[in-house]
């Protein structure tokens, strides 16, 4: 997969903004409320540290290895054999992530909007458009993200502004009622979402701009992501209060309170439509990473063939592996957290430390 792609830092970061915010706003409020109750909005601020760390590590790699892809960086750090092994591990772990995202998206739609629609149709359509985007290239995914990005911002601000009359800010207090433990524990959940910024390492070679710009813009975007999720959290908490922990998708419940002029109401389906756009960007970018990894593992170059094979595999696995919403939240979610921490934080930080050590000792 040697195709030359060039994207700007802004385009890259909009991919991650959409990926993190669109899925975070649906999945995060429920488990975070269970851990931190009314302190969940503090947890989101704490968890952004993972985003800053991810941006810094990406900056380090971009600065020191501007023209090398991630696999070459791994091979330089740990050698060819272990590097190949790490590549395989990343591929397997990300494959699990992919199945989790597909299932999360499918169950959300079938639970709330399309009870009678076949899961295979919902997943199949998403995989088809994602495959089309991957075959078209990273530039196309980035351009789609840049067009979709304003709609995600409008979604965030729209929900906040429209629900503003219903928000009771008292629901956010008291803070630290049971000490710092609760929000810190909850922040580990949101950190998994911020750790998705580590995926930027796979696109380091495609960025046309300098490492410094990546660092500066990266930090700004982490801050914007944090603010967007923060707005969602205080909206959900302010509208639903203690009821936040009783429903799996609190944002969808809060959206139902939106009413304009007693005529426009029950607009959640429009928010769902915009959310699907965000999920598309996330799945397409992850499929692109997986296709790249697979190409590296097999030394293959046919993107179309490999991405279509991967799509078929994920389609079958996502239909077989997680059957219901309860299994998704009880088994899938904890497993997803572990896998994400190992794949994103664990492996990339390890490579970073080894490279840093070798650099200090002037081995690399």
């Amino acid at each position: 997969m040697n195709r030359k792609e060039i994207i700007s830092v802004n385009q890259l970061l909009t991919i991650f903004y959409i990926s993190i915010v669109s899925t975070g706003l649906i999945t995060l409020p429920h488990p975070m409320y269970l851990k931190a109750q009314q302190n969940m909005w503090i947890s989101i601020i704490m968890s952004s540290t993972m985003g800053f760390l991810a941006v810094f590590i990406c900056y380090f790699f971009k600065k020191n290895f501007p023209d090398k892809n991630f696999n070459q960086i791994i091979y330089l750090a740990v050698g060819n054999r272990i590097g190949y092994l790490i590549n395989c591990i990343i591929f397997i772990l990300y494959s699990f992530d992919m199945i989790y995202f597909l299932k999360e998206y499918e169950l959300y739609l079938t639970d709330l909007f399309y009870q009678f629609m076949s899961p295979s149709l919902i997943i199949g359509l998403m995989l088809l458009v994602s495959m089309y985007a991957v075959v078209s290239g990273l530039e196309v995914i980035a351009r789609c993200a840049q067009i979709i990005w304003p709609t995600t911002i409008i979604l965030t601000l729209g929900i906040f502004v429209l629900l503003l009359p219903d928000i009771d800010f008292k629901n956010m207090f008291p803070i630290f009622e049971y000490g710092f433990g609760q929000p810190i524990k909850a922040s580990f959940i949101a950190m998994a979402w911020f750790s998705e910024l580590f995926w930027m390492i796979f696109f380091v070679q495609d960025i046309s701009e300098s490492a410094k710009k990546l660092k500066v813009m990266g930090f700004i975007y982490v801050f914007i992501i944090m603010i967007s999720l923060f707005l969602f959290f205080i909206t959900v908490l302010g509208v639903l209060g203690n009821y936040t922990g009783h429903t799996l998708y609190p944002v969808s419940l809060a959206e139902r309170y939106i009413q304009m002029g007693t005529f426009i109401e029950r607009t959640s389906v429009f928010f769902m439509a915009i959310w699907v756009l965000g999920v598309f960007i996330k799945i397409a970018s992850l499929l692109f990473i997986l296709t790249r990894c697979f190409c590296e593992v097999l030394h293959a170059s046919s993107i179309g063939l490999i991405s279509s094979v991967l799509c078929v595999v994920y389609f079958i696995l996502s239909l077989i592996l997680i059957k219901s919403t309860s299994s998704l939240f009880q088994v899938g979610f904890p497993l997803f957290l572990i896998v994400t921490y190992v794949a994103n934080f664990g492996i990339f930080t390890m490579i970073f430390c080894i490279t840093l050590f070798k650099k200090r000792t002037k081995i690399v």
Partner: protein
Amino acid sequence: MLKWISRTNSSKHSHRKKSNDQEIKKSSRDNLRILKEAFVDTPDVIMSSWNVGNNSSQNCLLIYVSGIVDMNQLNEHVIKPLHALKVNTNIDINSLKNIINIPNTNVIKTFRDIYKEISDGHPVLIMDSNSTALSLELSKWQTRSIEEPSSETVIRGPKESFNESLDTNVSLIRKRIRIPKLKIKKIYMGAYSRTPIAITFVEGIVDPSLVNEIIKRIRNVSVDSLFDSGTLQECIQDSKWSIFPTILSTERPDTTSAALVEGRIAIIVDGSPHALILPSTFFMFFSTPDDYYSGFIVGTILRVLRLFYALIAQFGPSIYVAITTFHQEMIPTTLLVSITRAREQVPFPSVFEAVIMEITFEALREASVHLPRPVGPAISIVGALVIGQAAIQASLVSPLMVIVVAITAIASFMIPHYELANAIRLLRFPIIIFASLCGLLGIIFSFITILIHLCTLRSFGVPYTEPLTPFKKSSMMDSLIRGPVWKIQKHRRFTEKNGMKRERRHKGR
């Protein structure tokens, strides 16, 4: 057998080629014989010969195609002076130039040149004892006068449009860009039609590699005939399989001139009243000259309105189908009651209604385009009364569906450029089907597919979705919105490297 046929064909071809490449003879009689052999059964080709000089020793042969030559000038400045010639010696071609009062003449040497010149409307003069001939640029093609644009009308602004004459069209551009840097490269295309094409650009602003690329693409096209710029557009555009146009065509000289000043290239084809502008981006298809002549606030509002209605034209009926089929909970109760009441008697599902109504409307539209003007109103009566009113009364469609189709139709007419409107209209049908299968999810996936496709498109190397993505702050002022004239400074990206800026016309502000 096949070999024999191909050999025979090739020998015939080579024989014809030889006779074409033949040089002009010194004997006028030989020349006349060859020309008569070539122009058998062509009564429009006139060959007249007479003797000139005091002792009538030198024969003169004039060949031209009647109907495409300015006969007055030919008589006045060529035939009369030659008849009045009083010399005793033979005249050569160079002396002939001084005798006739024609500013543009060319010396030609072969019969191929003669055929070419007379086909272009240039009479050819052959003098005895000369192995060269003189081509006289006295063509006068029949053409329409300059009229108002038929498809790009404006309330304020110039009312001139291109016609079918290449020279007139070029002159209309020259009238607006009066600098020597306006360059015109002429190429002939079509094995049989030999249609002249003018590639116009402003030197210094345009990217020279773009000019070379366009010339290369045109030269690579192999067609028998070229009668309109639409054929050329199809042959040279980047994505040949895309339904979206990546080259803008316009019949307005002011739009063409504005594009040239922006650093774009215009291609004018002889016989076509539409110039091609390239590279073209998606948002260019939403701008009209009115935007620039009616102030930036009104211009911006109109442009945003057009974009909004383009979305309605694309997704209007499918949203109706999705909501009535899958998302009834979205409809306010009072509205839902009235919709249900209206659909009570209709036996068909809303998707069937939508598709039937849309197809009917498309048929009406297509019929009205081809009908003679006096019969035109009849189709509206049929459309409005028979299909609209009668279909509702017969409970074949609901009144709301007719309203949705009508709004969609009006919305599609708001798209200023016909090619883009066509693309949007045609894509509407699969989206309606998707909406009936998956509701709003189907519409979203259709939108994503179109979005990916638009993002993959390029127009001569420029991303089709520029300046929205890749984001170009400088060009944003003249894309989604129409910024103030004094703010629209920079050229588009493909010319930025030349460091050119638009001249500030409002320095005092």
